[in-house]
């Protein structure tokens, strides 16, 4: 199989059962889950708490073993250490070594990946610029805000220039401005051709960045596909006009009704609360 055709992520019939200790019952966290993520694709894994998203990610990263099925990263079985060469991971609420500075943290993870000293120095500068943390590079992480920790976490995930990034709730507990920055970074990764597997409760954010989504419930995949296919309402059409007069709007309504189409709704579109918040706060940050 050629390199180009190899899926970034391949999960085939994954089942994970957590055996209960002593008399406790076993818990089936994931049931026969299958999915594929193409190179360069942004895939959103969504579902309620306890649905099996994090377990799936952990199996993919070799942190826990599958009870059945197989997971692979760029064709390399996840149970093998070398599968982690091509992947960067940002866990939910990451706590890195708080005694290290931002730069030291990236050095630490870069060296673990075997990045050479010279290349690592340049890479760290590049990443600090990417996540906009150059000003805090020499500060210990214990002084970082939640959003800054998420961003340094994202930088460590990218330190060895992986072709796949796995993000587990990357915006959990982050304020809207920080959340927006992380969303922009994901879009930047997409532009660079890096595949992303993203788990998030913020469905609006998933909608903004993902090419495809999978909805997981009680450990099983209940819906999967391209985002626009899943959320578009096939028999409805949206027209957005600017500076339309009342007369024009009335004529459009008459035309629609005269042509056997049902006129559903007309009104002014609304901005999102996030956009309003960002508009009102971003200019005042300085």
């Amino acid at each position, binding site marked *: 199989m050629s390199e180009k055709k190899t899926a970034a992520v391949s999960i085939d019939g994954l089942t994970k059962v957590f055996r209960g200790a002593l008399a406790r019952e076993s818990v089936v966290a994931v049931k026969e889950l299958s999915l594929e993520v193409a190179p360069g694709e942004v895939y959103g894994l969504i579902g309620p708490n306890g649905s099996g998203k994090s377990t799936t990610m952990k199996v993919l990263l070799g*942190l826990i073993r599958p009870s059945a099925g197989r997971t692979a990263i760029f064709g390399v079985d996840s149970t093998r*250490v*070398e599968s982690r060469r091509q*992947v960067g*991971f940002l866990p939910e609420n*990451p706590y890195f070594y708080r005694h290290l500075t931002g730069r030291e943290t990236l050095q630490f993870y870069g060296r*673990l990946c075997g990045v050479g000293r010279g290349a690592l120095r340049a890479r760290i500068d590049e990443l600090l610029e990417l996540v906009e943390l150059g000003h805090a590079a020499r500060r210990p992480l214990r002084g970082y805000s939640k959003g800054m920790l998420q961003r340094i976490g994202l930088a460590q995930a990218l330190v*060895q220039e992986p072709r796949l990034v796995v993000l587990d709730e990357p915006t959990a507990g982050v304020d809207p401005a920080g959340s927006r920055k992380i969303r922009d970074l994901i879009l930047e990764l997409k532009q660079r051709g890096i595949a992303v597997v993203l788990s998030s409760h913020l469905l609006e954010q998933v909608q903004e960045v993902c090419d495809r989504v999978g909805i997981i419930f009680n450990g099983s995949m209940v819906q999967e596909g391209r985002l626009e296919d899943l959320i578009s309402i096939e028999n409805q059409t949206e027209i957005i006009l600017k500076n339309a007069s009342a007369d024009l709007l009335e004529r459009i309504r008459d035309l629609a009704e005269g042509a056997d189409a049902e006129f559903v709704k007309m009104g002014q579109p609304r901005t999102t609360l996030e956009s309003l918040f960002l508009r009102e706060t971003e200019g005042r940050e300085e």
Partner: protein
Amino acid sequence: MSSREADRKPRVKPGGTVATRRGIGASAGRIGTLAGTTFLQLLRMKTFYFLLIFSILVVVASTFNVLHHTGEQHLKLLKDVALGAMSLFTSLFAIVATALLIPSDLEDRTLQTILAKPVPRYDYILGKLCGVILVVAVSVVVMDLIFGAVLYAREEMMVAAELAGATESGGFAEEDLAVLEERLRSQGLNWNLQNAVAAIFLKSCVICAVTMLVSTIASTSLFTIIVGFVIFFIGHLQSVARDYWMHALDAGLWKRLFSGLVALIFPDFQIFNVVDGVVAGEVIPLGAMTRMAGLTILYVMVYSMVAYLVFADREL
């Protein structure tokens, strides 16, 4: 199949071809990086504060001579207190510092970000172990320097004072003064003391390894510390269990089985117990030190290997 097994066996692709195996072996660079960060972590946690307590203790022990000991007795007491404190502090420090490492990485999920990188679990275990042993080594060197400096200073003061006293009182020939000085100096700073310090360090290496093994099973630092202390105490009685197992042939099956199990599982800390002998002036032969070092390496290797085997299958 565990990840350990998966690394060992070539995997067969669904199509039937054997996947090219490009395994990841232990890397000195990765182990060094983990060891360096562990060293820095313990350093920045201000764990070296106990050295201050040690310094105060040694200085106090060297200053007060409430029982009006002779110079020789005073130096002996100073060595006894300092080496005893060094042994106790190093052992306690080895248990507590090691117990803090893996459970805290597990608790705050730092472990997930480390093992999500191409880091084999044996590299992680070895890196952590090397880091904590490095911290212990630095602590022992610092304590040794403090102890050596204080002992040397007291030795010089005692020699000067006792020789001056003897000269003033008269009746001492040159040879008598030389004998007096030699007797005092035999209780002062000498290379044989370094054998005791080396034994303390080697013992702490075994403590680190065995505590590391416990921490791969435990989920909290507190549990690791408690079990570490229990092992520490049992380790001092291991030789009793071993003798019972080997010689009490007429004892009941269960008693022999239990004593055999204790002898097999726990390290024998009595082999490092040379401090009393050194304080008493006993010279530790090189052969004994070499045997001690060999046993330490064996213990550390065995406990590290078991720690890896436990940790390799641990779900994070």
